[in-house]
């Protein structure tokens, strides 16, 4: 269920006079969270920015359609995930190992210590070689700390199926890390 602040924001979004202010409040509250969720999935900043904008534009346009059965952030994740899937479908090309490493290196923050950087880089490369569905499930569970119930609601999937997906994703990542040691 949505918090009091979320309900207030939703009320403002649904009112024509306060829609813009409500939108500002909503975006300031969630833009970082949603951006990083998208960024981890698509990696490139430009793609993440486009998807983030598209997600919040949809919220602005279809706020009246939100039934309030789930929390606002679950709804935001749902829209963002759909936009990411649309993005994946558009760029159907499967990433090769070399490309994955290059993308990770190009986008990497250099402020970390060398050993930490190496681990993080490897870890990100391991996540990127997962299938799209596994990547989404792993990110939701590992980084966003969403429950399987919330994930099932967002992805329209059963909890058991998601648990299986997560299990295989972690197995693959482990295998990748071992392989590149």
């Amino acid at each position: 269920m949505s918090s009091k602040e979320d309900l207030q924001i939703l009320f403002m979004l649904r009112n024509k006079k306060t829609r813009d202010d409500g939108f500002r409040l909503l975006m300031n509250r969630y833009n970082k969270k949603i951006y990083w969720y998208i960024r981890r999935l698509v990696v490139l900043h430009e793609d993440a920015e486009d998807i983030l904008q598209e997600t919040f534009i949809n919220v602005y346009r279809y706020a009246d359609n939100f039934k309030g059965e789930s929390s606002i952030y679950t709804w935001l994740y749902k829209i963002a995930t759909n936009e990411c899937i649309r993005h994946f479908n558009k760029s159907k090309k499967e990433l090769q190992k070399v490309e994955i490493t290059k993308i990770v290196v190009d986008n990497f923050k250099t402020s970390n210590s060398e050993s930490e950087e190496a681990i993080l880089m490897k870890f990100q490369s391991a996540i990127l070689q997962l299938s799209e569905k596994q990547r989404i499930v792993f990110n939701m569970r590992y980084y966003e700390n969403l429950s399987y119930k919330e994930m099932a609601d967002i992805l329209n999937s059963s909890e058991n199926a998601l648990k299986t997906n997560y299990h295989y994703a972690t197995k693959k990542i482990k295998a990748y890390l071992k392989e590149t040691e």
Partner: protein
Amino acid sequence: MMENENFFEKIVKKVPYQVPDGFFDSITERTLQNAIKRNRRAKKRYMVIWTSAAAVILVLLTISVIYNYQFNKIGIEKTLVQTEEKGSVKIPREKMEPISDSSMYDDMNVFEKKQVPFLEENSLNEEETFKDLLTTLTNDELLTLAGQISAEISINSLIEE
């Protein structure tokens, strides 16, 4: 599953990628402006679609009204011609005026009963006037004649319409 989760807990959940400076400060306003623009465009598109739909419906309605009117007109004329051809009903083409001469009843004696042959078009002599003929008719015959005339008048008015 638990073992998996413990394994990954050891890896720091740090954000590994870089973001351009000031990105989060400007993204809200930029997105809002885009959303407003998109909304306006969608509204315009809806207006165009609805206006076009209304125009198409109006044109179709006008065409169907005109077509129906024409069809009914032709249909009535066709039916009349067909019934005439079949000979089932004879509809006089000439316009008939109702008999308005009240003097024709002047000499009529309602009690007087005369033997008059049944009124037929061919039975009229040239010398006989219509008035003379009426005086010779009985009440019943007059009523029959009046009925026939009123029926003809109503058919005429129908055709005229």
